């Protein structure tokens, strides 16, 4: 699904160059659950942003489902993005002015789905996530765990083949964090590829593969115990 070859990302601020990603080589297959780990500032989020086409690499090759998208224009990237990728953020990134239902249905709006279908689909997803009763509330009226479940609902509503989660449990307590991870596991079990950035070694246990990063480079790729267990 994803192939990165010698991928670099350099930020320039005035005369100062910051290398965020340096010579990244990474391959992700359909159905994998990848955890990306590393200390703050090591480039995890940048890698995820590039992967999600929210940002473009400075150089290198980025193959997504066989196309080299590294040099695609923003409009084209937006199109690939909205058909294939769902996002989950640490800070939820829900729109305060919209209701829970409207937030969840937002991606469908941009896929030009008629409003009735949008509504029905969003309701069914909220039902699945167990927060249908909060459909007409505003995000601020929800707990962190509930907000993140709304965000997950929004990420999955288009049935993307890839979900990118940037520290999805970072703002949640342990209980709520576990719930979100369970949701992700469930999605993975249903065939969705998941890439998750996390700080927490215990969360990485849910992944089939862990990518360790330091200073913009990929250090090691561990096959986790879960996978070992599966192989066994």
């Amino acid at each position, binding site marked *: 699904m994803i192939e990165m070859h010698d991928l670099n990302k350099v930020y320039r601020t005035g005369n100062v160059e910051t290398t965020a990603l340096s010579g990244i080589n990474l391959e992700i297959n359909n159905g994998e659950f990848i955890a990306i780990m590393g200390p703050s500032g090591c480039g995890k989020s940048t890698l995820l*942003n590039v992967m*999600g086409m*929210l*940002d*473009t690499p400075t150089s290198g090759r980025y193959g997504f489902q066989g196309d080299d998208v590294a040099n695609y224009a*923003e*409009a084209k990237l*937006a*199109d690939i*993005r*909205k058909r294939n990728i769902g*996002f989950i*953020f640490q*800070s939820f*990134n*829900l*729109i*305060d*002015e919209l209701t829970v239902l409207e937030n969840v249905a*937002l*991606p469908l*709006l*941009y*896929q030009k789905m008629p409003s009735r279908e949008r509504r029905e689909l969003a309701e069914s997803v909220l039902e699945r996530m167990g927060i249908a009763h909060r459909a007409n509330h505003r995000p601020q009226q929800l707990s962190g765990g509930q907000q993140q479940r709304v965000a997950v609902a*929004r990420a999955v509503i288009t049935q993307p083949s890839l979900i990118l989660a940037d520290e999805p449990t970072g703002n949640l307590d342990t209980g709520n964090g576990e719930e979100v991870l369970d949701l992700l596991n469930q999605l993975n079990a249903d065939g969705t590829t998941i890439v998750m950035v996390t700080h927490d070694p215990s969360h990485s246990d849910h992944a089939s593969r862990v990518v360790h990063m330091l200073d913009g480079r990929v250090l090691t790729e561990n096959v986790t115990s879960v996978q070992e267990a599966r192989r066994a």
Partner: protein
Amino acid sequence: MLSNYLKIAWRNIVGNPLFSAINIIGLAIGLACCIIITVFVQYESSFDKQWDNADRTYRVTRDFFSNNLRLAAVAPPIGPLLAEDFPEIEAYTRALGAGDVGMSVDQEQFMAENVAIADPNIFEFFAFEVLHGDAATALEDPSNFVLTRSAAEKYFGTDNPIGRRAVFMGQAEATVAAVIEDLPSNTHMRFEMLLSIRSIPLMMGPTALENWGSNNYYTYLRLPEGYAPEDLSSRFPAFIDKHQGAGRSDSNALNLQRLTDIHLTSNRDAEWRENGSLATVYTFSAVALVILLIACINFMNLTTARSTQRAKEVGIRKVVGATRGQLIFQFLGESTLLVALAMLLAVAIVELALPFFAAFLELPLSFSLANPETLGVLLVGVVVVGLFAGSYPAFYLSHFRPVEVLKGQATGGNSGLLRKGLVVFQFATSIALLIATGVVMMQMQYVRNIDLGYDKANNIVLPLPFFAPLWETYEPLKVELETHPDIVSAVYSSRVPGMLNLDSGVYIRGDEQITDESMVGISDIKVDYQWFDHYNVEFLAGRSFRENERRIEMPTDEQPVTQGAAILNESAARRLGWSPQEAVGQILRQLTSSGTEKFIEREVVGVIPDIHFASLHNEMKATLYAEPNPVYNRQLSVKVDARDPTSAIQHLEDVWARMLPANPVSWEFLDDNFAALYRSEQRQAQMFGMFSAFAIFVATLGLFGLASFTTERRTKEIGIRKVMGASVRDIVLLLTRDFTGLVLLANVIAWPAAFYFMSDWLNRFVYKAPFAEWAWLFIVSAFAALAVAWITIAVQASRAATARPVMALRYE
């Protein structure tokens, strides 16, 4: 403390260049407009205040009810008789505006402009600065005259021509007895030469100054200090009945106008010069204030819009002990500092723009910072505007509670709603101004294109010297002119189109007795027998004059009834109770000033439609066209049929110089005269256009700022939407939608307001452009405002929308 505030204020101004620039530029434009308009208003209200006792000097005016004449001048006997009947009148003086008069100095011909003929004591009333000679006694002698400095230089080549002689109208000789300084521009009077009123009986006959029908004398009275003018004017009707005959006060009246009120409030027939208008002064003052208000609203909106940026500062200051009062003081200081910077820019703008504005209005407007009073006014202006613009933001910003702010919970509250209301107000006023400008221009267009009922094109008009010995020359002059191949025809008349006609007569149907009820006042114009052909006027009934109907005799004691012909316009026929067809063949009796026994019997030979003889400000009057009479050959119309009239004009000047050698020629195209009739409206239209442009520009600046802050505030939302698949178009639409609603709402408010005010303005015209001709302006203005708003916001929105979404989310 203060220096800390100033430092913070300065950093806020420098640190937010967009915010500061929008506010300073907007406020500077608003302030500059206000300064310029103040200079204009000051000038307009300074008229005639310079004369001694100006506050108790009054001008006598006269109204005639039957033909709705409101004259600025009165008959010559009225001044002396008033002084005789009412001993409280301290003094009176009179001046006859004689217009342009031909004059020769050492054989050289001139057309002396704006000659006035005045009582010797005019210098007592108006203390003109005397440069040479003794002005006080100069006009005692009927053969003396007084000049202004420029006139002395123009006609005598020296500023001291005392004792030099000039011949007026080829006949009357007079001597320069005094030279006065040029008239100040801020007076309602206009002349460059004063002849003695004592010359009038010599020139126009011994009884000329006793003629109650010659209402051409501006007459001024000086009343005692503290005397209420109403105490005098209330006795005017009795005065008229006493001198003119019982009951005559029903047909005409005298009034008093304070000298200093003449320029702005008097808009009478036959004013000495075109006066100003209080309505114009008010209108432009209001518009300038509106522009400043729009700029102040920009400040309020932009300040509260970015309040979240300042909320933290407010919270921290409160935590460390600032009171709300101190914070309000701080924020007011900031707004005042900003306004002070705007004022500096405004003064620069005024210095640059005022000369153009003054040239455009043809007024001697000036502005000088050297005047301490001006500086004081500007300082007060800074403080007042600073406090006003800063008031709402100061109270709003200082209300934040520190706990909420520091926890990041402070929200815009309901300031969003107020902000929207203010934006609606800004756009509503801009749209209304835009519509107003359009309506004024449409009316100008309408007036230019209206069918006047005659053909004024290609006409050259010339005033003729009013001097009896020349009358015999006029017939051959016409014949000579018509020999030129490019000259179609030349006709005489008492007035030419575009002129206000003040002549009128009293008529009675031939089949009725002479009673007060049967007497009808009708305007009259004396015209040449081919006048109607010349101006292409069609006849509704009957025919034009015939050659043998020219020159009728005035009634005398020996022959009390004389015969003549008349052509009526439709209104006049109707006033007399006839349809156009019925009128032809009827007899009218025209009473003369010498009693009811002597009259002219006129047979109505034709009826023409009502033609727009005067400016469209005036209603078409019931008018009688009388046969030509050399006494009334005051104007010559020459119709030229050539693409290039140069040769015809050359011929005209040659013939004139040969046949009227003592009188300089002066001609104008009738079309130009007509354009001049509407010049003040034309100027108003242009000024309106200019001011609307400023208002819209300042409102747009504000919208630009507001859109940029809104976009900034919604950066995160835009990012999320983009991640969710929103296209650039989706985002731009999202951001423009809100403002579109506001602009549409502004239209809903602006339309009825503009309709109301402009209908009112159009009522000043007797002939006004119908609504159907300017209705489209409403739609166009709405689209123009929408387009401006959309472009402004779309620029901001597309910048945010095309940024990579990660940029929007990064600031987390």
